């Protein structure tokens, strides 16, 4: 069972679970699920541009998704259209333009499905550097700004009055999300990234009484989902990305009512 590709897959999956859990808590607390989904959609444009220009697709994704997020923040500022409308425009525009650019590239080897649903079993050593390099950056920045971010989540103006540079911390959160999206594409694919952020955090919610506890628990549930998903997919010969998400969903479905029972 310890083929090198399985080991690499596990290493990548564990890395992603560990960062997606804590960051996913903010996605749950701040209702950013649709935003995360849109970021992931915009990633396809990043991959396409990466292929055309020859730069690393992960780097391309981070750049394009960050640009996408900036554009969104700026459009939100004008307050003429609601955020979900803007996301609906930007996400699908990026997805479509990405597909158009890819058709110009005319790359025959391009496997669209692997980008949409992930292809964790083909993870390379270079991918692992991105996961762990990006992961450490995300965790360090998240840790340093944890209290400010949590306070802002509860009341943004209160944080501002107490000296938090809310504009920059908001921007930081968005950039951290783009990094997680970029390094997670190989694991679960564009269409399933949000589930990796949201499901473990949602599962952890009822079990913990502090924000930090929820973050740690979310990382743990993500870890459990990734490991059982990878082993399950190897054993049952099912697609790996969807298997991980299925495992996460099973955990959620079982643990949610159990937590409700405990609370009584």
């Amino acid at each position, binding site marked *: 069972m310890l083929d090198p590709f399985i080991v690499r897959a596990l290493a990548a999956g564990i890395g992603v679970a560990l960062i997606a859990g804590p960051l996913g808590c903010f996605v749950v607390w701040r209702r950013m699920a649709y935003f995360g989904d849109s970021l992931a959609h915009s990633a396809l444009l990043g991959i396409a541009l990466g292929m055309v220009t020859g730069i690393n697709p992960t780097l391309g994704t981070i750049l394009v998704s960050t640009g996408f997020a900036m554009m969104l923040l700026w459009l939100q500022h004008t307050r003429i259209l609601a955020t979900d409308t803007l996301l609906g425009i930007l996400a699908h525009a990026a997805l479509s333009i990405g597909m158009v650019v890819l058709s110009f590239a005319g790359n025959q080897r391009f496997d669209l499905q692997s980008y949409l649903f992930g292809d964790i079993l083909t993870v390379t050593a270079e991918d692992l550097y991105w996961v762990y390099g990006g992961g450490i950056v995300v965790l360090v920045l998240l840790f340093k700004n944890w209290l400010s971010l949590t306070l802002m989540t*509860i009341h943004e103006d209160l944080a501002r009055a107490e000296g938090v540079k809310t504009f920059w911390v908001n921007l930081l959160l968005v950039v951290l999300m783009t990094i997680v999206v970029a390094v997670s594409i190989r694991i679960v694919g564009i269409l399933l990234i949000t589930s990796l952020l949201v499901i473990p955090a949602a599962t952890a919610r009822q079990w913990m009484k*502090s924000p930090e506890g929820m973050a740690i628990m979310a990382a743990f549930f993500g870890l459990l989902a990734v490991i059982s998903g990878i082993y399950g997919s190897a054993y049952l010969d099912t697609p790996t990305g969807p298997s991980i998400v299925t495992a996460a969903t099973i955990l959620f479905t079982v643990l949610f009512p159990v937590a409700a029972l405990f609370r009584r």
Partner: protein
Amino acid sequence: MSVLISASHVSVVRDSQEILKDISLEVSEEDFITIIGPNGAGKSMLLKCLMGFYAPDEGHVTSRKGLKIGYVPQRLQAEPTIPITSRRFLTLRRKSSAETLEKVISETEVSSFLDKPLSVLSGGQLQRVLLARALLNEPDLLVLDEPAQNLDITGQLAFYKLLDRIYQERGLSVLMVSHDLHLVMSSTKNVVCLSREICCHGEPRHVTKDPEFISLFGPDMAQLMASYQHRHHDHDHDHSHVHSLTDKTEESSASHHA
């Protein structure tokens, strides 16, 4: 007395609308200033400008060096999605000694629900927790933005009573936006009546008789305020207060003596 914050000729323009127009205002030590005004008068914007959230488009705001501000927002929408106890929220991103914490907790009477999740607290409890959080910083100035707006009448009374006690005991300054002028009449030293620009300002009993105040809130409001005024300040004239409610001319002649 030392000036904590001063605004001079502050104007704010948003979407080519002048939200604040030529505002000059000073908050000094031990001041208690209440800002009143109709909806959309720019009250919250003025507070945010004074606290430095936004730079004014014209004019400038200066504050005393090292000024510590405690901010109490209008309301806290405690989402149940985030698990956090009131105690944790109180000290979140705040470093204070156990002694200070203890003092503030007893001062604001929040100890009985400190270990409950923030999301289950009532409106009045939440406002007290917010007030406690603002006090933990040992502020020179408390800035409150309609702090009792979402409370019922008993809650409002209790909150303003608590605020008044803290103001008296701590000797700090208070700058507050409030619609409940009748409830803060006895605490507040100065009233600023705002409708994009400062219409009138001064001691509460004078402001409520100002023609600008009357034109902004109507004569009924002015008369109502005047009657509260009597109740709080001229206790020995209580009978004339009762009288004044029934007789308009009597009321206006009485007001000249006040």
